[in-house]
C-alpha cells in the first residue's frame, strides 16, 4: 500500500463528505471544514480536491436539487465509495498502531 494515495487535505475532505452524508456538496463541505479547522478555505482548493478524488475513484457524485439561492443551479452531492472507506480504515489503523507503539512520556496523562 502506497502512503501517497491520499493527501492530508484530501483525507480531511473525504472524511467530511462521509460525515455530511446527503448534504455533502461544495459549499457545505467547505463550511464544515472551515468550522472544524478554524481556518478560511477557498472554493478552488475544495473543488480541486473533490475532482481529483473522483478521478481516483474515492468519490462518486450526482446532481441534486437546485435552489433559488444558487440562482437556479443544481448542487452536486458527493458520496464516498467502498474503496474510499477501505483506504480510510487502512490509514486509521496505521495511525492507531503508531500511536499505540509510542514510548511512555513523562508528560503524558493517559491518552491512547
Amino acid at each position, binding site marked *: 500500500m502506497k502512503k501517497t494515495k491520499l493527501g492530508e487535505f484530501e483525507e480531511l475532505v473525504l472524511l467530511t463528505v462521509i460525515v455530511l452524508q446527503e448534504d455533502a456538496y461544495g459549499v457545505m463541505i467547505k463550511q464544515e471544514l472551515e468550522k472544524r479547522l478554524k481556518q478560511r478555505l477557498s472554493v*478552488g482548493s475544495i473543488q*480541486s480536491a473533490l475532482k481529483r478524488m473522483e478521478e481516483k475513484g474515492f468519490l462518486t457524485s450526482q446532481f441534486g436539487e437546485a435552489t433559488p*439561492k444558487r440562482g437556479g443551479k*443544481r448542487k452536486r452531492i458527493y458520496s464516498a465509495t467502498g474503496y474510499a472507506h477501505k483506504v480510510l480504515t487502512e490509514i486509521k489503523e496505521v495511525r492507531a498502531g503508531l500511536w499505540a507503539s509510542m514510548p511512555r512520556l513523562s508528560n503524558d496523562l493517559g491518552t491512547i
Partner: protein
Amino acid sequence: MSRSDQSTPPKWPLKFLRFFVKEEYLEEIEGDLEEEFRDNLDRYSVRKASWLYTWEVLKLFRPRLIKNWNGRNRLNIYDMFKHTMLLAFRNFKRHKSSFLINLIGLSTGLACTILIYLWINDELKVDKFHAKDAQLFQVMQNLPLSDGIKTIEATPGLLAQTLAEEFPEVEEAVVAAHPMEKRGSNGIISVEDTYLKGNERYVSKNYFNAFSYHLVEGNKDQVLSDKYAVLLSDDLALKLFGSTENIIGKTIEWKRGRLSGVYTVSGVFEKPPSYSTTKFDLLFSYELFFGEYKRLHHWGNSDPATYVILKKGTDIAQFNEKIKDIRRSKYLSSGDGKYLGQIGTLFLQKYSERYLWNTYKDGKVAGGRVEYLRLFSIIAFFILLIACINFMNLSTAKASRRLKEIGVKKVIGASRTTLIRQYLGESISMAILSLSASLLLVSLLLPTFNEITGKQLSLHLDGQLILSIVTIGFFTGIVAGSYPALYLSGFKPATVLKGKINTSTGEVWARKGLVVFQFMVSIILIISVLVVYQQITFINAKNLGYNKDNIISFAKEGKLEEGLETFLSALKKMPGVVAASSFGHDLIGDHGGISGLEWEGKDSEERIRFGNLEVDFGLMEMFGFEMKAGRMFSREFGTEESTIIFNEAAIDAMGLEAPLGKTVKFWGKERQIIGIAKNFHFESLYEPVAPCFFQCYPNLDNILVKIKAGMEKESIERIRQFYQEYNQGLPFEYKFLDEDYQALYASERRVAVLSRYFAGMAILISCLGLFGLAAFTAERRLKEIGIRKILGSSVWGIIYLLSEDFTKMVIAAIAIALPLSYFLSKNWLNNFAYRIDLQWWFFAGAGLTALLIAWLTIGIQTFKVARVNPVQCLRDE
C-alpha cells in the same frame, strides 16, 4: 433578507468564470459561488461580498478546472470544414436568385478593383527600373515671372560640370539635351542607300553611369569619349546594318541641321523599355552639342536637362539650399548681371517621381498625374464597397430563411463562434467564386481597357499579382461577411424557433442607410460623368480664335531645306490646296518664350514672359487670326525682319496705349509693332491667354498646308507624291493639326470614358441590391398583400404601397448626393481656366434618372408579387 434576494453576483468575475471553467463543472461551481455570495451578503456589505466572490473566482483558476482548448477543437476542424462547405453549396443551389445577385455584384466589383489595381501597378513602375533610382535626381529650375513662378526642366549648359566640380555630394552629374532645331521632327540617318528617321539625345560621357540603359555592344565608359561618336538602338542597328554585331567603327551619315555630318558607331544600346519616359533612337555626345551651340556657354540661357547621382545618405534639403542660387551667382560673376531678375533658382526632384508628380505650384511639387491614381483608387474602393454592402444587406434581409437552422443548431449546442465561422466560410466561398468569375471578366475586358488607357496591361500571373488578388478577394469575403455572420449567429434560439425575428429599429435603419449610401455613390458618379463629358465637349468645340480644320503639318527635311519657297509655291498651285506656309512652332504649347523684352515705359523690375511664335508669310491668314488693329505680315513690305505683331494680352500686359508704330527691343534688335492680333488660345485651355508675339521668318521648320474640305484624300496623295519627288526614299509623315490638339486632352478624355463605364457599373450593382431587397420585402409581405387584394386593392395600389419605402430612401440619397457632387464638380472645374457653368439640369437629370431606375427595378419585383392570387398565399391561415 431582501438584500440577498435582489443582488446577483458581480458580472465580470462571473463572465471570466464562465470563460475559463470546464463546461461540465460550470453549473456546480457557479451555483456554489452564488450560494456563498448570498450567505456573505447576510454577514457583510455588498462590496465585501462581491470582493470575496471575485477572490474566489481568481482562486478557482487552477489547471485542473480550466477548459481544455486544444484537444477538443482539433478533432473537429476537418469535419466542420466539410460541413460548412456543404451547407454553403446547398444554400447557393436553393436560393439561386440571391446567389446570382451576389455573384454578379461581387464579381463586377472585384473586376473593377483588379483592373484599376493593374493600372496603378503599371503606373507606379514607370522610370523605376534604373539601378541607382534612389540616388537619381533631376535638377529643376524655378523662373520668377511677373505672374508667378514657372517651373521648367531646362537648365544652363554648364550646370552639370559645375555641380560635379564644386559639390562633393555629387557622384555623377549628367547632362542630356534635346535637339535644338526643329523640335518635333526627326533627324535622318543613312547608311549607303538606307534612309531612316530617328530622334536623338546629346548626352554626357557618364550617361550610362546614371541611367540603366543596357548596352548590347560597347563599353559604357568609352562609348562617348569620341566627340563624333554615335550610339544606335538595337532596332535601328538591325534596320541599317542587318545586325547588331561588328558594327562598331562603321560610319553613318546624319542629317540634322547644323549637326549634320558623318559619325562613327561606338556602341549599340537596347531600346528603352516601355516603362521609360525618355525614348530615343540615337545618342550623340554632349561635347558635340555644346561645341556647336555657343548659347549654351552662357549662364543666361537654359536648355538641356541636368541629372545628378547623389552619394547615399545625402540630405536633400541641405543640398537644395546649396544649389539654389548657383545659377544666379554664376550669372553675376560671368557678365553684367543685367537680367538677374529673370534668372531662376534650382532644386532637385527625384527622377522617377517626375512622371507622377509633374505639376508645380509656386516652385514646389504639387501633384500631377498622381491625382488620377488617387481618383481611380477611390472609385475602385467605392465600387467594391457597394458590392459588399449589397451582400451584407441581402444576407441580413434573408435571415428569416435561416431561422430554423440557426435555432436548432444553437439548441443542439453550437457555440456562437462555430456559427460565425460557418457564415464567414459561406461568404468567403462566395468571394472565391466571385473572384474566379471576376478574373474571367477581367480577361474579357482587358483589351478594351488597354485601348482606353493606352497601356499594355496583362493578367500576367506573377507571385505578387496572385498574392494581391487573393488578398483582395479574401478581404472582400471577410468584410462582406462579417456583419451578416455576427448578425445571424446572434439570434436567441428561444425567439427564433417560435418563428419571430426581432428586427430592431437599429437594424432597419442600418439597412436603409446602406441602400441610401449605394444610391448616393451612384448618383455622384452619374453627375461626374455628365460634368466631365460636357467639359470635354466644350473644350473641343470652343472657339479657339483660329481655325485648325483641315490643316496638315509635316517637317521640312531633306532637299526641302533649300528652296522651300519653290516647294510652297508649287503646293499652292495644286488643286485642293487652299494655302501653304511654314511655322516655327505649334499652337498647343510648344513655342519659344522670352522675358527680356523691352518697351517704352517698361518698369525695369517687370518680368513678363512672352510667347514667341515664328511664322512664315501667309500663315496667319491660313489660321484665320483676327486682327484687332494694324496688319499682318506681307511680302509687299519686304522681308519684315524689323516688324512684330503682338496679341491683345501682350499689349495689355505692357500697358501700351496706341501701340501701332511703337518699337520694342529684344535680342539686341529693334522691332516696330505693325499689328495687334485678337486673343487666341495657343496653349491648353487650362491656362488663360498669355502674352505673345509673332515674328516673320521665311523658311521655317514645320510646313503647314491647308486642304479643301472634302478633298483631303486626293490632295494628301498628291502632296505625298510631290514630296517624294523632292526627297527620294524618305517616308512622307504628316499629321492633322486637330489630332495634335485632341492629344492635349487625352487624359481628360480617358477619364471621361472610364468614368462612364464605372458609373454604369456602380448603378448596376446598386440596382442589383435594390432588386434583391425589393424581392425579399415583397415576399415577406405576401400575406398582407393577399388580404389587401381581397379587401379590394388594385394591383397598382399594391405596387405603390410597396415602393413607397424605397422611394423615400432614394430621395434621401439624392438629397445628400446633390450638394456633394456640386462641390466636387466645382472643385474639378476650377482647374480649367475656361470652363462650363454647372447647369441645374445636370443635377436634376441625375436625380431623376436614379429615381426612374430605382422605380423600374422595384417595379419589376413588386409587379410580379402584386399579381399573386390571394388564395395561394392565404392558404395556410
